[in-house]
C-alpha cells in the first residue's frame, strides 16, 4: 500500500476519480434541490427561459410561422424597425424572435424629455 502511495500516477488517478465523484454527487444534489424546490414557478415549461429557445427548433418544420413579422406600433418607421432589428441581431436575436416594436411606456423617459424641454426654454 505504501509503495502505491509513492507512485505519482496512482495518486493522480485516485485523486482525480475522487474529485469527479464528489463533484458528480454535488451535481446530483443540485438537481435534487431544483426538483424539490417548492417555490419554482408551476408554469415552468411555458415560462422557462432555457425551454423557450428549444421550442422554435421543434417547431422548425412549420415554416409558415417563422417569417412572421413583428407587430410594429403606428408611427414607427421602417428605418427604425431595421435599426432596432440590426441592434438586436448584434446580440444574437433573430428577426423572427422579435414579437413587437413599440415605444416603451416609461415615465422616466417622459420625465427626461420634460426636463430637457425646460432646460431648452431657458
Amino acid at each position, binding site marked *: 500500500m505504501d509503495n502505491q502511495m*509513492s507512485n505519482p500516477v496512482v*495518486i493522480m488517478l*485516485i485523486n482525480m476519480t475522487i*474529485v469527479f465523484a464528489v463533484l458528480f454527487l*454535488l451535481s446530483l*444534489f*443540485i438537481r435534487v434541490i431544483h426538483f424539490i*424546490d417548492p417555490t419554482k414557478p408551476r408554469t415552468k415549461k411555458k415560462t422557462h*427561459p432555457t425551454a423557450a429557445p428549444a421550442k422554435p427548433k421543434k417547431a422548425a418544420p412549420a415554416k409558415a410561422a417563422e417569417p412572421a413579422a413583428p407587430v410594429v406600433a403606428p408611427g414607427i418607421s421602417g428605418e427604425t424597425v431595421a435599426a432596432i432589428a440590426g441592434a438586436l441581431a*448584434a446580440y444574437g436575436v433573430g428577426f423572427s424572435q422579435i414579437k413587437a416594436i413599440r415605444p416603451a411606456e416609461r415615465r422616466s423617459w417622459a420625465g427626461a424629455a420634460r426636463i430637457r424641454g425646460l432646460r431648452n426654454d431657458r
Partner: protein
Amino acid sequence: MEIFSAFAISLQSVWLDSGFSALTWGNVAMIIVGIFLLYMAIGKEYEPLLLTPIAFGCIMANFPCTGFLEEPGVMQVINYGIKFEIFPPLIFLGVGAMTDFGPLLANPNTLFLGAAAQFGVFISLAGAMLLGFTAQEASAIGIIGGADGPTAIYMASKMAPNLLGAIAVAAYSYMSLVPLIQPPIMKALTTQKEREVKMDQLRNVTHFEKMVFPVASAILISLLLPPVAALISMLMLGNLFRESGVTDRLSDTSQNALCNIVTIFLATGTGMTMNAEDFLTVQTLMIIGLGLLAFAGGTAAGVILGKIMCRLSGWKINPLIGSAGVSAVPMAARVSQVVGQKANPSNFLLMHAMGPNVAGVIGTAVAAGTMLAMLGAK
C-alpha cells in the same frame, strides 16, 4: 583620548546591534525581490491587493535581528494565523459572501469542468514527485494549479510549511498572469467554429435553491472530506449570509471589512515566510516551473472536457468556458469571455463561465481534501 575610545566602543556596539552587521547577500537579494514584487503590484497592477502586502512582508522577513517570529507580538500572531490555518478559512468566508453560485446551480454540468481543471493539480503533483519532492510537498506544490491562494496556503501550511513562501508567491503570481497564460492554450486547443458557439441563456435560479445549496453542499463535502471541512464550511457560511436576505450586515462585514483585514494579515504573513535561507533555493525555481505546468495542465484539461461536452450537447456548450475551471475567480471567467468575444463579437460567455469558475473553487478544495486524507498532514 578616553572619550574617543568610549565613543568608538559605543559606535561599535550600535553597529553590532544593528541589522546591517548581520545582513547577508541573501537578505539583500530577497529585499530586491520584494521591491520588484512591489513594482509589479503597484506599477503593473498585478494582484495589487495581495502582492503589495506579500512584497512588503518579504522585505520585512529579511531584516536581521528583529526577532519577529521568536518574541510575542503582532508578527508572531500573524505567523500563528498562518501556521494554525486560521486565516485561509476566514478568507473563504469572505469569498463565499462574494460568490454567486447561481450560474452553477442553473447548469450543474459545469461542475465537471471545475473537476477537469484539477487535472493540472495532479499532473504537477506527479511532476514534483518525479523531481524528488516528497508526496506531501508535491501535493502542496500541485495545488498551485487550483489558482486558489487561500487553499494553496492552507495546503502548504499543513503539508510543506518549509515551502509556504515559494508556493504562495507562485500561486498568486500565476493567478495574476491568467490573462497571459490561458488564451494561447485555449486558442491552440479549439477551432474557430468551437470558439464561436453561442450558449443559451441560463435559467432563473430561485431563492430557495440559492439558500439550500450552501447548507447541503457544506454537509455533503464536510462529511466526505473532513480535512477541508473548515474551508468548505466557511465558504458556504459566507454564501448563506449573502443569500439568506436576513444577514446583510454579516454578509457586508464578511466580504468587506473582515476579508480585507484577514487579507492584510494573510498576505503579510505569507511574505514573511520568504526569508533568504528558505526562499533562495533551487526548489523555489522548481516550484515556479511546476506551478506553470499546473496552470497550463488545468487550463488544457478544462478546455478538452469542454470540447467533449460541446459535442455531447450538440454544440450547445462553448469549450472556452472549460478554462475557467481553474478558479481564479473571476479573472478566468473574464478570459473565457474575452477570447469568446474575439471569435464572435455577439458571444457573451461571462455568466456561463462563472459556473465552472466557482465549481473550480469547490473542486480545488475537494482536491486538497482528498490529498490531505490520502497523504496526511506533515
